[in-house]
């Protein structure tokens, strides 16, 4: 893996990197990924990234609500009804447990789904193209396609520099 087939545009301002991504998308440059210390909401939209994760979370939450209600109904109405102060057995006070366990079920199963789908497990080595993207830099990663020669790559370098990149590096990670 000697040939350095990735361009890393390093930026130090979130607004500049958003504008640069916009400019690259306008020039039909295929961006592989953008690394940033915190989420940039417009970049997400510009890269046209898609996820089904919210639907999964909704389903986990809904299943959590339904199963907790079923359990509470079974314990306090069907199996062992106790009357306190004349209050009805099937009551709105279930809502507290339903609320808490909906959040628990949503969070735990979403996290599990994320780890499985992204193939992340403890001790896995996750290579970062530029370690400064965990600190204060924003990195745009562009991969060399099969139909791109060195000339095209140099043009992308120029484009990144014009749009405010503080450094343009090559990498093979």
């Amino acid at each position: 893996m000697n040939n350095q087939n990735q361009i890393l545009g390093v930026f130090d301002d979130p607004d500049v990197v958003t504008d640069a991504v916009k400019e690259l998308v306008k020039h039909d440059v295929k961006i592989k990924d953008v690394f940033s210390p915190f989420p940039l909401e417009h970049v997400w939209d510009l890269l046209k990234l898609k996820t089904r994760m919210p639907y999964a979370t909704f389903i986990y939450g809904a299943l959590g609500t339904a199963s907790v209600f079923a359990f509470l109904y079974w314990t306090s109405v069907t199996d062992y009804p106790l009357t306190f102060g004349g209050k009805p057995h099937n009551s709105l006070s279930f809502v507290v447990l339903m609320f808490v366990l909906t959040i628990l079920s949503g969070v735990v199963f979403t996290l599990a789904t994320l780890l499985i789908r992204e193939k992340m497990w403890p001790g896995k080595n996750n290579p970062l193209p530029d370690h400064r993207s965990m600190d204060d830099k924003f990195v745009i990663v562009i991969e060399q396609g099969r139909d791109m020669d060195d000339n095209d790559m140099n043009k992308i370098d120029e484009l990144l520099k014009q749009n405010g990149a503080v450094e343009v590096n090559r990498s093979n990670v």
Partner: protein
Amino acid sequence: MDSKLKVSKSFISIMFVLIAIGIITIAAGFIAGDGTRTWANLLLNNFMFLSIVLGGLFWMALQAITQSGWSAGFVRIPQALAVNLMIAFILWIPLFFAIPHLFHWAEPEAVHDAVLVHKSPYLNIPFVIIRTVVFFALWLFLACRIRKLSLKEDEIGGFDSFIKIEFLSKVFIFVLGISIVFVGIDWVMSLEPHWFSTLFSVKIFVSAFYHGAVIITGTVIILNKLGYFPFLTKAHLHNFSKYIFMLSIMWGYMWFIQYLLIWYGNIPEETVYYHIRREGGFQGLFLAEIFINWAFPFLFLMWNRIAKNANALLFTVVVLIVGQYIEIFNEVMPGTIHHVAFGFIEIGTFIGYAGLFALIFAISLSKRPLVAKNHPYLIECLKDEDIEEEY
């Protein structure tokens, strides 16, 4: 940018017809001898009117103290509510004469009730009226001052008005946070004077903010459909729906903690409030209140595409206006007329108030330019890109 809202002649005449319907119904209610019911309806609609106005003004103050950029183009809409606040005060004056008809603590036999005698230093007619007038005066002073300063900003520009508005908004939030507690206690909670809840006024406050934000959203969408606010994008709509979504959760939380504490406390003095609502004929409305105001917007606006759709938001706004009516109905009616009564008096009074609110709001909006053109954050508001997303 300098365009003013043009109120069409037909709109004004329709609104006058609605107001006439309201006046006729109220008069008919009194003539037919249904005094208490008509007064209760006046209180209900007055309180709904005031809630929306105060909630909208609170929304405006919140934008000012957080220096929000996205809403800079829409600040004129809640500012116009200052005129509605004046009308709310005028509408409130007849209620001062209705206190003995509506409130159990003001009735002559209250002097034989030890609890009410104990509460009488606070709950007596002159003190209630003084408090209400003082609060209205404070709100009106601050709201009109902010409105004037914003117009001055249009003429002169610079940061002077912006800084003053921010300061006055802080004062307004402070004043409102304290005064709405007393208004809620005096005019709604004391309808059932033996019952009390320290959470009640918080719920009144959140409900006002919630439905104020709803009315502002609805106004923006309707005006956009009429050709104003050409810069309105999905990003703005998403921010408006985030407000509704967040406040629906907040409202549901406030509704539920009050219920939950009374449920587990199980003290007869407190449970009587929910007993009449759950067993005394209000069951359907009791459930409708929580489902319409919390469950519906929570589940409906959760979907990203719905949250950015103008028509879906407009539908939510209409449903939530009904939800607010049901909420205040549940607060006012069990303590005044003790049973569910929904007939021509209720519908007619609501129509009259809705017509008056819309007419005053539209005229007040038409007096000033719709966009504060020298607002320092206006550029940020106009820049919000319209990002089409595929799902």
